C-alpha cells in the first residue's frame, strides 16, 4: 500500500481532524455554559448544560428516553430499509436501460420536488395515526433521491469495464451483479449516508404531527410544558444518533470498499 501514503506527514496532535472537531464542539459547550452561568438569558429560554444533563438522566432512568429512542430508530430503519432496498434495483434499472430511464426520470424528478412533509395530511387520511404513515413518509421522502442518485452512479460506470466483461463472454445479469454493482457500491453507501439525514428529519416531523411516542413527540410535549431542557435533550440525542449512523456508514464504506479510498 506504499502508493497511498502520499498524504501529508504525521499531523501534529492539535491539527488532527478529530482533535479539531472535538475542539469546535467543546467551544460551543463552553459558550453555552458561560452564557447560562452569566444569568443574562432567562433559564426558561436557555437551560444550563447541567440542567439539560439532569433532564437527560431523568428521562433515561424513567425509561421514557429509551422508549422514544427505540420508537424513532425503528421507524427510520424500517422506512429507510424499504427505500434503500427498492431504490437499488430501480436506480440500476434506470441507469442501465434508457427506456426505463426515460419513462421514470421525469416522474421521479417531479415527485422529488414535492416536500415530503406535505404528504402527511394525505397519509393520515389514508392510513390513520399508526406506524404505517410514518414509515411511508420516510419512504416517500428518501426513495426518489436514493433511486436518482444510484441511477447517476450507474451512468458513470466506465464503458470499458462493461465492454471488457462482454468481450470476455459476459452478458445480462452477471454484468450487473459483477461489474455495475461492485463499481457503484461506494457511491451507493454514500447516497444512503446522505439521505439517511433526511430520514431522521422526516421521522421527527411525522412525530411532531401525530405520535404517541418517539423523540419528536417528546419534543412537542416538552414545548407544551415549556420544558426547554427536555427539548435540548431531544435535539442533542437526535444529533448524536445521526452522527453515529453517519460514522457507521463511513466505517462500512472503508471496510467494504477499501479499493475506492
Amino acid at each position, binding site marked *: *500500500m*506504499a*502508493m*497511498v501514503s502520499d498524504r501529508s506527514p504525521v499531523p501534529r496532535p492539535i491539527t488532527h481532524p478529530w482533535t479539531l472537531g472535538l475542539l469546535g464542539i467543546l467551544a460551543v459547550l463552553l459558550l453555552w455554559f458561560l452564557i447560562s452561568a452569566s444569568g443574562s438569558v432567562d433559564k426558561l429560554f436557555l437551560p444550563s448544560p447541567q440542567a439539560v444533563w439532569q433532564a437527560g438522566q431523568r428521562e433515561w432512568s424513567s425509561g421514557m428516553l429509551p422508549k422514544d429512542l427505540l420508537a424513532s430508530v425503528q421507524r427510520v430503519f424500517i422506512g429507510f430499509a424499504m427505500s434503500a432496498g427498492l431504490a437499488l434495483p430501480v436506480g440500476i434499472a434506470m441507469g442501465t436501460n434508457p427506456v426505463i430511464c426515460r419513462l421514470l426520470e421525469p416522474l421521479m424528478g417531479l415527485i422529488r420536488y414535492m416536500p415530503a412533509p406535505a404528504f402527511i395530511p394525505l397519509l393520515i387520511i389514508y392510513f390513520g395515526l399508526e406506524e404505517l404513515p410514518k414509515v411511508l413518509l420516510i419512504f416517500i421522502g428518501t426513495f426518489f433521491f436514493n433511486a436518482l442518485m444510484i441511477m447517476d452512479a450507474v451512468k458513470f460506470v*466506465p464503458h*470499458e*469495464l462493461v*465492454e*471488457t*466483461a*462482454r*468481450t*470476455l*463472454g*459476459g*452478458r445480462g445479469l*452477471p454484468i450487473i451483479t*459483477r*461489474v455495475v454493482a*461492485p*463499481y457503484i*457500491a461506494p457511491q451507493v453507501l454514500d447516497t444512503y449516508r446522505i439521505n439517511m439525514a433526511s430520514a431522521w428529519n422526516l421521522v421527527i416531523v411525522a412525530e411532531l404531527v401525530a405520535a404517541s411516542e418517539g423523540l419528536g413527540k417528546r419534543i412537542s410535549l416538552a414545548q407544551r410544558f415549556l420544558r426547554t431542557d427536555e427539548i435540548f435533550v431531544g435535539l442533542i440525542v437526535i444529533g448524536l444518533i445521526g452522527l453515529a449512523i453517519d460514522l457507521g456508514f463511513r466505517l462500512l464504506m472503508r471496510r467494504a*470498499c477499501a*479499493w*475506492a479510498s
Partner: protein
Amino acid sequence: MHLQVSDVSKTFGHGRAAKQVLEAVSFDLHAGEFVALVGSSGSGKSTVMRLIAGLDTPTSGMISLDGRPVRGPGSDRGMVFQKYSLYPWLTAAQNVAFGMELQGRSRQEVRERTSYFLEVVGLVDAARCLPRELSGGMQQRVAIARALAAEPRVLLLDEPFGALDIQIRESMQEFMHQLWQRTGLTALLITHDLEEALLLASQVHIMAPSPGRIVRRVAVDLDRSSMADLRLSPSFLSLREDLARTLRGLDAQPQ
C-alpha cells in the same frame, strides 16, 4: 482460425448529420498471424476493432470468424483496451480469473489457469495486488493475461501501450513479441505508432482518415531475434521511413 473482414463500411448518425468513418475495409487474419492497423486519429482504426469485437455493427459489409458472421461480443475475440479496463475492486489474480468465471469454468480450472497466465505475463508476485498498486505496464499485462485466459481465438489489442511511458512501452513491446512467439497467439494490433507496428506485426495495414480506409499493405519480414538490434537495423529504419512518408502524405492532404 480465419478472421475475415470484407468490404466493411460504417456510418454514424443519419441524414445530414451522417458521418462515414469507414469505407470498404477488407483484410484477413489467419491463425498465428500478428497483424497491425496503423493510422492517425480519425482513421477509424478503433472502429474496426469495435466492429470485430462485436461492440458495434457495420453499416455494410461482413465480418466473420471461421465462416460464422460476428453478431455480438463473445469470448472467442478477446480485447485489451488502452486503459481503465481492470476491475479496481479485484486483485490481479481475481481480474485474470474474471472472464473464466463468467464462462462458468470449474473452480479448480480457474485457479490453475489463473496462476499459469499470471506466470506467462510475469506477475506471480503481484497476484494479490489491487490494480491501483500496480504500474501502468503491469496493469496492461494483467489485462492481457485476463484476455488470454478466456481462450480467445484472436486477441484484439486496441492501443494497448498507448498510455504508457516510452521506456515501459518499449519493454512491453518486447514482452508482447516474446509472448507471441511463445504462445503462438493470433493478434490484431491497433496503433498510431508505426515503429510498434513494424516491431510486432508480420502484416501492416496503413489506414487513411475521412473516411477511414486501408491505403497500403506491407508484409514485414524482418529478423526479430533481437529487438534492440532490430530498432536500429537499416532495413527496419528504411521501411519505417518509407511508411512514415505515406502517413505524412495522408496528413498533408486536404480533408
